[in-house]
């Protein structure tokens, strides 16, 4: 089945599911949820089946390749394929969607908008997320990149909190502006390819290795970087994120921060580094500075939040700083660490926002930390999950985010020791705000309103269990993921033209097996 169009199939399944969900009568909300869950599980199953066939030692850059001409006149084709990085992120998206559907079973029951609409939008978003990670045609990537805005806009704008319209518009405007710059850069890239290859193309592999003078390269880099930095988001382009996270439902927040924002950092690895190697090195100090500021600024602002969703939005911004840092220090350890961190952060975001969502559902939807306290006594299991999510967020050794964060810092230390030292401060702040959050919500006296709440039950535990499991597995046994990711990272850095610095302490003969 080597010619089976895996990626198209995986992408189409949720889309078909969305169509079926929309065709159901408005009142059959339970059926709509079941259908949505079933289709997302089928997509997950197919993803697992595909991932098992992925050959980590392969020498070709992309596997499961499909390509059909779309607009031949402009060298645009419908081309899909994944390398290790793409595979990991496709898997992340396919995993989180069923989790979100299950966890958000009752999130929109009271909404004026239709329930089936919510689940259909989630499925449409899944299709686009898979597309954006799998596209190997830059134009196709752009189309998915921009198309994602539509379902997210409606997910926030129709199913969110009281300020949802404002948050949705802010998100949309930021993303559109970024997208326009990317479009301009995209056309510029096509111009360069047309001049050099005789015929313009958007095929990613043909675009890698184009010769550009440094001015062109830097301008085009900025066009793409602007879009990715808004999407990721990096300091100072982050202001849309706390609003969007606060106003959206927990499920939307998971998909938004856990998967969607990864498109920004994914784009940096996939497109910025290989296509604009010289410009990437030129701008690396700026990006590193932005990343470090983001790490510290996000953590400090998180310390001052009394709203748990905003707290974790700022926390994510801080973590995105780590991811971007790992990418732009140009070491295999750092970049691989970034990819692992992207995966781990997706899982830990899911844990944090879903647990917070369960908690909020028990307190009339309030997201103010000051409304909570002492839940460990009333709902020990929920508090346990909360502690787990909190620890995963602060990168406790043994959990997935630790592996990522540690690798990023090691990778940074190899080339920029002082930056690593400063960034490490971020870990300290993270510990402070995460533990303080747990202390204020789970310990101490229990407010009267919380004394009667019930603990998490079957559906909620079922949705969280896979996240917990995967976080631990990634934490103690990251080998398989690294095996898949490393070749792609090495290939990327080879194109950039950097090699890892030799270790400062000489390796003792025989100490490495």
């Amino acid at each position, binding site marked *: 089945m080597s010619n089976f169009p895996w990626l198209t199939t995986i992408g189409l399944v949720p889309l078909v599911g969305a169509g079926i969900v929309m065709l159901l009568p408005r009142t059959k909300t339970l059926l709509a949820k079941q259908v949505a869950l079933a289709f997302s599980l089928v997509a997950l199953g197919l993803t697992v089946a595909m991932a098992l066939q992925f050959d980590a030692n392969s020498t070709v850059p992309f596997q499961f390749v499909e390509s059909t001409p779309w607009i031949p006149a402009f060298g645009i084709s419908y081309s899909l394929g994944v390398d290790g990085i793409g595979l990991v992120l496709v898997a992340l998206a396919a995993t989180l969607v069923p989790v979100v559907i299950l966890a958000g079973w009752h999130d929109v029951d009271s909404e004026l908008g239709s329930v089936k609409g919510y689940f259909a939008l989630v499925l449409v978003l899944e299709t686009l997320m898979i597309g954006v990670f799998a596209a190997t045609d830059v134009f196709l990537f752009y*189309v998915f990149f*921009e198309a994602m805005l539509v379902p997210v806009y409606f997910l926030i704008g129709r199913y969110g909190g009281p300020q949802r319209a404002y948050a949705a518009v802010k998100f949309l405007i930021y993303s559109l502006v970024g997208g326009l710059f990317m479009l301009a850069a995209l056309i510029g890239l096509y111009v360069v390819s047309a001049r050099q290859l005789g015929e313009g193309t958007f095929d990613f592999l043909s675009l890698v290795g184009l010769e550009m003078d440094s001015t062109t390269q830097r301008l085009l880099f900025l066009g793409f970087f602007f879009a990715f930095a808004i999407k990721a988001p990096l300091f100072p382009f982050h202001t849309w994120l706390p609003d969007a996270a606060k106003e959206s439902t927990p499920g939307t927040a998971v998909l938004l921060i856990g998967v969607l924002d990864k498109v920004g950092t994914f784009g940096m690895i996939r497109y910025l580094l290989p296509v604009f190697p010289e410009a990437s090195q030129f701008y690396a100090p700026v990006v590193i500075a932005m990343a470090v500021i983001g790490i510290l600024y996000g953590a400090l602002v998180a310390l001052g939040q009394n709203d748990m969703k905003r707290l974790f939005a700022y926390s994510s911004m801080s973590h995105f700083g780590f991811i971007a840092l790992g990418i732009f220090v140009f070491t295999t350890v750092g970049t691989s660490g970034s990819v692992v961190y992207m995966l781990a952060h997706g899982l830990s975001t899911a844990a944090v926002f879903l647990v917070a969502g369960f908690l909020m559902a028990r307190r009339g939807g309030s997201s103010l930390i000051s409304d909570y306290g002492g839940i460990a006594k009333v709902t020990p299991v929920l508090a346990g999950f909360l502690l787990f999510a909190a620890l995963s967020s602060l990168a406790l050794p043994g959990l997935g985010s630790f592996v990522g964060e540690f690798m990023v810092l090691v990778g940074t230390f190899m080339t920029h020791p002082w930056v690593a030292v400063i960034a490490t401060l971020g870990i300290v702040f993270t510990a402070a705000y995460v533990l303080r959050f747990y202390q204020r919500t789970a310990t101490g006296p229990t407010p009267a309103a919380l004394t009667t709440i019930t603990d998490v039950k079957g559906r909620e535990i079922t949705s969280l269990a896979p996240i917990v499991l995967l976080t631990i597995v990634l934490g103690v046994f990251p080998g398989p993921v690294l095996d898949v990711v490393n070749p792609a990272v090495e290939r990327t850095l080879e194109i950039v033209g950097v090699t890892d610095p030799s270790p400062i302490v000489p390796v003792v003969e025989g100490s490495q097996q």
Partner: protein
Amino acid sequence: MNDVLITPDIDYQALTPMIIIGVAAIVGVIVEAFSPRRPRRGIQLVLAFGAIVAAFVVLVSQAGTRVITGSLAIDGPSVFLQGLVLVIAFVAALLMAERKVDPAGDSFAPRASALPGSADERELSARGFMQTEVWPLMLFAVVGMMLFTAANDLLVMFIALEIMSLPLYLLAGMARRRRLLSQEAALKYFILGAFSSAFFIFGAAMLYGFSATISLPGIADALTANPGQTPLIVIGLGLVTVGLLFKIGAVPFHQWVPDVYQGSPSPVTGFMAAAVKVAAFGALMRFLYVAFGGTQWDWQPALWVVAIATMLVGSLLAITQTDIKRMLAYSSIAQAGFLLVGVIAINPEGIAAVMFYLVAYGFATLGAFAVISLVRQGGGEATHLSNWVGLGKRSPILALAMSLFMLSFAGIPLTSGFVGKFAVFEAAILADATPLVIVGVAASIIAAFFYIRVIVLMFFTDPAEDGPVIAIPSAFTTLALAVSVAVTVILGVFPQPVLDLVEQANVFLR
């Protein structure tokens, strides 16, 4: 004395499409004179739609088989553009036939000669008079446009220009609502149009003075025989180009555009904006490519300046507009600038790109004016942008359609506008005009700002208390909107067949 008058050999069959429309227009005038009031509208509608469809069918059936050159050139570009004019005319005619949207009837004044605000006018309105002269006028304009794209000598081109323009001057002044504005628009259009015609004919005289011929290939031959820049050729080229650029609405010959677009009845504005551009770009390209293709280095720098100014001025001034029709007018100026980029490329890709762009632009424009004709307040159209606030909540489908047209104008992928812009830019790159492309992309980003602002207004702002009324259109406008939406989407997602078509039709015969 051998001066026998030799009758020219005319291939009437190749001219059939134009003859059909022309005859229908003349019959329409006779109908106006002799038909009783009651069946008149029916007859005119059948005549107009029938003629347009028949001409289109004949045109398509003999495309590529009948090729002539002489005073008229029936070649790839002219057949394609004539077909486009006919399709645009069909859709515009649908908008003109609408009678359900305005509570008082159609979009046109009951009698153009009645003084605005006079008792005469009130009485005509009260008695429900509606005129049908617009139909033959429109058909005459269509003949002129078709002739304009095919004209291969300067005199035929001039005649075509006048046949096209005179009915449009009249149509511009016939709005039922805000008649003073409409009449002012017509007068401005007429005076400036006459002025530009004078430029054209002076220029033609100069060129005749240089080359002793009015045929475009003849001028090209004369240029080859006598190279160098003589005053006659420079002035002649300049003046004729100015006359054509005026019709296109390029900066600095654009001042009439906002007033005329705003004052004319919306169906006429849509028709004018879409079809005149098609015809005028056809003529401009033929003039420059056939007569002056060999001396492109002489005129390209001047057109560079015009194109850059047109793109930037159109985009920047559109931002400051508060009336949607004026905004679209400035937007059409900016679009003319993008089209000029394709003209300047002076290669077959440029011709193909401009033709594709004209299709994309034409239908998005018609669709946008169709939407405008439906958003009404107090009987008339609510064109102030503040009236469009929250339209997405009142009428999501209409607002979605408008958003689509705006995105297409802005050149966002998956709409026809993107493919058009891309094709034009690509042609310019092939012609080593990369700086033009850079300016074009920059202007697109500026332009995107005001297009997206309309979308933000419609969807993301809360509606006002006394907002406009959304008229429920009859099948005519609905069909016109549906066609515009379909073309915009299909050409955005699957443009390849039309790209292939324009590529086959991209050579001007001499």
